[in-house]
């Protein structure tokens, strides 16, 4: 079951995760992706790479244009359905969290006081609503495209929900890390049909990735499903 005639296509995320992700794929035995100088598409040694915005990786995989894709768990939380989530690559680690212009220990009381009048700016409206709904709060969620740290400073919202890595940007804008919604790492996703028509290829890649994860000594990465010849 291998669509051997056409190259396997993998959508890679632009931005902060890109270098770590490409490193993992090389460690897992895939050819290097020579995507530089503005190139968005390259084919090498039977593998085709696309470079896309992390949120667009999901679209390319859903539509079947990419067999596999790598993007952050936060993106998957915002765009559920239409793909298989195969493995946690354990890189690109960051935290989807609530942040705001107040001391962290005053946040619980602030939340109780504001209740449904709370205003939140975010690029992750779905995750934000789900998180606050879990606490019985239904805030006004304002979707912004970026530079979220501005919103509380000019009174557009009380707090923001954003990905936090080092915390430096928050600090630079006078915002405190208040509460984590969920940790986010890079995940490998697959087009459902690709799992059926490229089973052997995907299986081998998964085995290699799990081997790399184990070698990197990441906790909780004991290979559960890596393919071995014993199963063939």
């Amino acid at each position, binding site marked *: *079951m291998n669509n051997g005639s056409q190259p396997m296509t993998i959508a890679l995320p632009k931005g902060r995760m890109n270098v770590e992700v490409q490193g993992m794929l090389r460690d897992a035995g895939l050819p290097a992706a020579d995507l530089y100088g503005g190139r968005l598409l390259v084919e090498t040694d039977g593998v085709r790479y696309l470079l896309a915005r992390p949120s667009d990786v999901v679209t390319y995989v859903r539509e*079947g244009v990419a067999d596999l894709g790598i993007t952050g768990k936060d993106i998957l939380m915002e765009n559920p359905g239409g793909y298989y*989530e*195969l493995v946690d690559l354990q890189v690109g680690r960051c935290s989807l969290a609530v942040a705001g212009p107040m001391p962290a220990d005053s946040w619980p009381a602030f939340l109780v006081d504001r209740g449904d009048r709370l205003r939140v700016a975010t690029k992750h409206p779905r995750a934000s609503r789900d998180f606050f709904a879990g606490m019985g709060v239904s805030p006004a969620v304002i979707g912004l495209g970026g530079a979220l740290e501005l919103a509380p400073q000019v009174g557009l919202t009380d707090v923001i929900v954003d990905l936090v890595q080092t915390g430096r940007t928050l600090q630079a804008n006078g915002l405190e890390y208040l509460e984590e919604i969920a940790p986010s790492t890079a995940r490998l996703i697959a087009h459902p*049909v690709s799992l059926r*028509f490229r089973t052997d290829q995907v299986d081998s890649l998964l085995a290699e990735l799990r081997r790399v994860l184990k070698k990197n000594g990441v906790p909780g990465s004991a290979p559960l*499903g890596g*393919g071995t010849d014993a*199963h*063939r």
Partner: protein
Amino acid sequence: MNETAWRRRVERRLADRWQTWGYREVSPPVWAPWDDVALGAADLPLEAWKFLDPQGRLLTLRPDNTLALARLAATDLVAEPRPLRLYYRNDVFRRLGGTGGVEAVPQAGLELIGGGDARADAEVLALATESLVDLGLGEFRLSVGHVDLLRRVLEGAGMPPSARVAVMAALQDRDHVALEKAVAAAQGVTAEQRAELFRCLTMPVRAGEREVVARWLEKWPGGRQSWADLEAVLSLAGLYGLEGYILIEPGLVLDLDYYSGLVFEISVPGLARPLGGGGRYDGLLGRFGAAEPATGFAFELMELIAAMRAGDISPGVRRPTCLVAACNGRQQEAWMEARRLREVGVEAEVDASDRSREELIEYGRRRGMDTLRLFTDDGPEEIALSTGSHPEGGPGDGGATVDAGAGGAAMIPTARGKRGKAE
């Protein structure tokens, strides 16, 4: 060729094929009582489009054909000898993406009601396969799972109910990362067994290599009977020559909750959504009347057509088309010519406007027609409108198809009299 022409063409081929297996067509009503829908399947009532009848009864626009045929089997067809072999081709109505409006989803499918063993399941798989091969699709897969097998394996794996729920949710969400965590909750089993369970639930296995799955399942004796049932179907499928098309996926979970045994889904490379699917639903008929085993499947026609278009497939040959026009009182010649052409299998359209010659040529080309025949005072003239024939039914919506076997694209017989200059 336009959507409707494609759809009718595909429906006709499927209907012909299914009739040769002894299935007959039924036309369930376009409405379904809400009570039936609520009886049938857990999620459907949310998605169904509801309205009231003049007596104030709550109805829906038919959201599911299996439910509709189950109702028929229990009422109009209750006295018919079993097994019932029925097929349908119509629309079901679903809500578009969450908060959207209603969408009509074209389907064609069949049900085998009263057949309770592997022979019925294998017949259904064979019909699905043969229909697709017949339509010209070369590359597709039937992914086969089993609802009861999955349930018993999880029970036998020593998983507390909450973990089993987590596993089912992860399988439904197609989230193998969450699945891995949920499988970790299996107690009293070795790490190796956990790994094998995970693998069994995530990796499709070719039907020809099913001993791999058998080895995995040896550890879970609860699943023995269900696996034996599934193996019986796979053996028969092998005898029918279907083995190459079948993948075994014990982790397959379909959306509807009335399935009780074998379930399957059909995939084609390059297409994001399945072409169709189905399975066994032994518990459903009993909710409408007497309990009966039943199995069946449905094709999603839009996906099927997309797959055929992507594969440049057409099950028939397009008839030639001709525009016939006349001027200055030569209308009768045009009418006679059109009649003559129709008798030899050409689709002839008689112009009923006052268009000039140039306007007629432009109109004919935009319609995608093959030829223009003009009857003027200078005699008949034939003008080729398209460059070369289009056996697939190329641009425009002209040209119904005849079945392949009626010969290639027929040549248009020449008009009586002088042949005009071709453009």
